[in-house]
C-alpha cells in the first residue's frame, strides 16, 4: 500500500506555485522579449533625461575611446565614435528614432492596408479590381528601389521618410483583409449579423476585424521588424535619417568604416536591432495565441 500522505514530502510553498504558474503562462523567451521591448520603450521615452550627453556633443580629446569594460574611461560607458560622441547617448537617441519611424510606419501601413482591404471586399467590382491591380503593382516592385527613387527625387525630409515607410507593406494587409473579409462574409456569423440589420461599421469593426485580427497581428509582428530593417537599410545607405539626426541604421552605416579599429560604434546598435526585432516576433507570436478565446 502506498501511503498518500508521506511525511517527508512537503508541498511547495505558495510563492513557488505562483512562480510556476507565471512560468507556464509566460514562457521565458516571451518574458525576455517583453522585458526587452519595455526597456526599449522606456529608453525611447526618457532618453532626453537618461542620456549621459547630448547625442551630438563632441569630445575631441576622447575620440574612438573603447567601452569601459575594455579599459575605457567611465566617462563614456560604451566608448565614443570618430568625433568623440558618446556611443551610449547616441544609441539611446537612435533607438528612439528607429522605434518611432518603424512604429508610425507600421501603424500607417496597417491602417491603410486594412481600410483598403475592407473597401475592396465591401464594394467588389471595379473598386476591387483597382485595389488588386495596385497591390500587384506594389508587390512587383522592390520597395527599396521605390524608396531610393522617391527620396532621391523629392529630397530627404523626416516626414516624407516616415510617410514612405507607411506605404511599405500596406499591400500585404490589404490582401489579407480583403481575402479574409470575403470568406468571412459568406460565413454564418457575418451573414447573421447583417440580417440583424447591422451596418458595415458594425459588421467590419465589431465582428470581422476581431475575427481576422490574429492573422493581422502576426503580419504586424512580421512587418514591424521589417520596418526597422528597412529604416536601418535606407539609413545605412545614407538615404534614411540624415545626420546630425541619428538612427540605428545610420549608426551602423557610419560605424562600418571603423569596424576594424572601433567595432563598438556599429556593433551596439546592430545588437539593438537584432534583439528588438527578435523580441517583437516572439511577443507577437505569443500574443496571437493569447488573443484567441478558443485557444485559451
Amino acid at each position, binding site marked *: 500500500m502506498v501511503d498518500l500522505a508521506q511525511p517527508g514530502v512537503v508541498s511547495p510553498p505558495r510563492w513557488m506555485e505562483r512562480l510556476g504558474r507565471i512560468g507556464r503562462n509566460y514562457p521565458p523567451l516571451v518574458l525576455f522579449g517583453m522585458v526587452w521591448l519595455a526597456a526599449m520603450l522606456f529608453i525611447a521615452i526618457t532618453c532626453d533625461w537618461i542620456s549621459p550627453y547630448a547625442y551630438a556633443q563632441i569630445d575631441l580629446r576622447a575620440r574612438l575611446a573603447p567601452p569601459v569594460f575594455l579599459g575605457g574611461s567611465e566617462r563614456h560607458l560604451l566608448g565614443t565614435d570618430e568625433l568623440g560622441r558618446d556611443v551610449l547617448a547616441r544609441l539611446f537617441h537612435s533607438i528612439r528614432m528607429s522605434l518611432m519611424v518603424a512604429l508610425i510606419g507600421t501603424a500607417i501601413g496597417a491602417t491603410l492596408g486594412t481600410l483598403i482591404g475592407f473597401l475592396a471586399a465591401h464594394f467588389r467590382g471595379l473598386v476591387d479590381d483597382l485595389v488588386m491591380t495596385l497591390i500587384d503593382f506594389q508587390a512587383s516592385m522592390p520597395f527599396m528601389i521605390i524608396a531610393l527613387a522617391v527620396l532621391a527625387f523629392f529630397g530627404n525630409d523626416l516626414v516624407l521618410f516616415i510617410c514612405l515607410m507607411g506605404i511599405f507593406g500596406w499591400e500585404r494587409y490589404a490582401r489579407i483583409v480583403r481575402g479574409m473579409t470575403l470568406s468571412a462574409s459568406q460565413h*454564418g456569423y457575418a451573414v447573421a449579423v447583417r440580417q440583424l440589420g447591422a451596418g458595415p461599421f*458594425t459588421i467590419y469593426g465589431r465582428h470581422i476585424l476581431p475575427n481576422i485580427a490574429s492573422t493581422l497581428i502576426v503580419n504586424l509582428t512580421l512587418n514591424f521588424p521589417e520596418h526597422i530593417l528597412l529604416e536601418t537599410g535606407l539609413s545605412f545607405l545614407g538615404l534614411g535619417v540624415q545626420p546630425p539626426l541619428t538612427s540605428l541604421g545610420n549608426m551602423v552605416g557610419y560605424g562600418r568604416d571603423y569596424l576594424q579599429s572601433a567595432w563598438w560604434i556599429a556593433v551596439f546598435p546592430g545588437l539593438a536591432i537584432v534583439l528588438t526585432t527578435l523580441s517583437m516576433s516572439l511577443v507577437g507570436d505569443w500574443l496571437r495565441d493569447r488573443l484567441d478565446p*478558443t485557444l485559451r
Partner: protein
Amino acid sequence: MTPLVEARDLRRHFRIRMGGALLGGVKSLKAVDGVSFRIERGRTLGLVGESGCGKSTLARLALGMTAPDAGQVVFDGVDVTRLPTGEWRRLRRRMQMVFQDPLGALDRRLTVLAQVEEPLRIHGLAAPAERRERALGLLEGVGLQRHLGDRYPHELSGGQRQRVVLARALILEPDFLVCDEPISALDVSIQAQVVNLLLELQQKFGLTFLFISHDLKVVRHVSDEIAVMYLGRIVEQGSRERLFARPEHPYTRALIAAVPTLDRERRRGRTLLAGDPPSPLDLPKGCRFQARCPLAGPLCRHIEPELVTLADGHRVACHVAAGATLERAA
C-alpha cells in the same frame, strides 16, 4: 384577413460557369422558379423538400437578403425585395432568421450575452443596463441560466447554442421568423426540446413562422400549412391534415411513405423513390418529377403542370393527380 407575408411568383436563377475556366459556357441554375405562398399572422407555413431543392434560397428571398430575379415578397404591405438599404435594415426589427448551424451563426469572439443584446445595440434601442437585463431575461426565457451569458459559443452545447440564436432573433420582438433547418444540426434528443421551445415562443409572442426542414415529421408537428418543394417549385400545398391524410402529388406520397413507421400494413404499400433528382441545371421538358414518377404519362413529358387549386383549396402541380381528382369531383 390579409396575410402577414405574401410571396408572389418568386424567381431566383444563378448563373453557373460550365466546363473550362476560359472556354466554358454559362448556364442558369433555377434555384427558385416561380414560387408563391401566403402566411397568415400567427400561423406557420412548413416548407419541405430534399436538399438542393431551393429551400434556403427561398428563405433568403423571403427575408429580402437576396434580391429575386422576378417576383416580390410583401411583408405587411411592404415589398421587402426592393427596399433601400436603410429601410431594409430597419425592417429587420420585424423579421428575423434562425440558422441551421448555430455555431457558425455566432461570433466566436464575443460572449453569448453580448451577442444576444447586440440587435438592441444595432437598432439603438434601450440603454446599456436595460439591454443587459433584457438579454439576460430572454436567455432565461429560452431556458438558459443567467450565468451562461458570460460563456463563449464554443463553450456551450449544440442545443444551448441554438437557444442563444433563438434569443438573439427574438430580442427585437419580431413578427416573422424564418427558421432554416433550425434543428437539423442538433442531436435527436435536443431536437424535440428546441421544437417545443419554438412552439411555446410562438404562443407567447404571436410569431409567424416560415419553417424549413427536410424532416417531414418535424414539419408536421409545427406547421398549420405545408408546402412541398421540388427543384425550385412548390408541387403541393395544403393544410397539414389534408396533406398527410390524402397527399395528391406522387412526390409527396413518396415523402410521406418514407417516414419511418412501425405499421406493417403501411410499409407494404409504400412507394419509394429511386434515383436522384435531375440536375437543376438541366431540367427535363415537361414535369420536373417525371423521371422518378411512377404515374408519369405522355402528357407529363411535354407540358409542365401548373399549381392548380382543387375544390377543397388544396393545391397541387400534377397532371395525373389534378385530373383524377377533378373527374371525381365532377
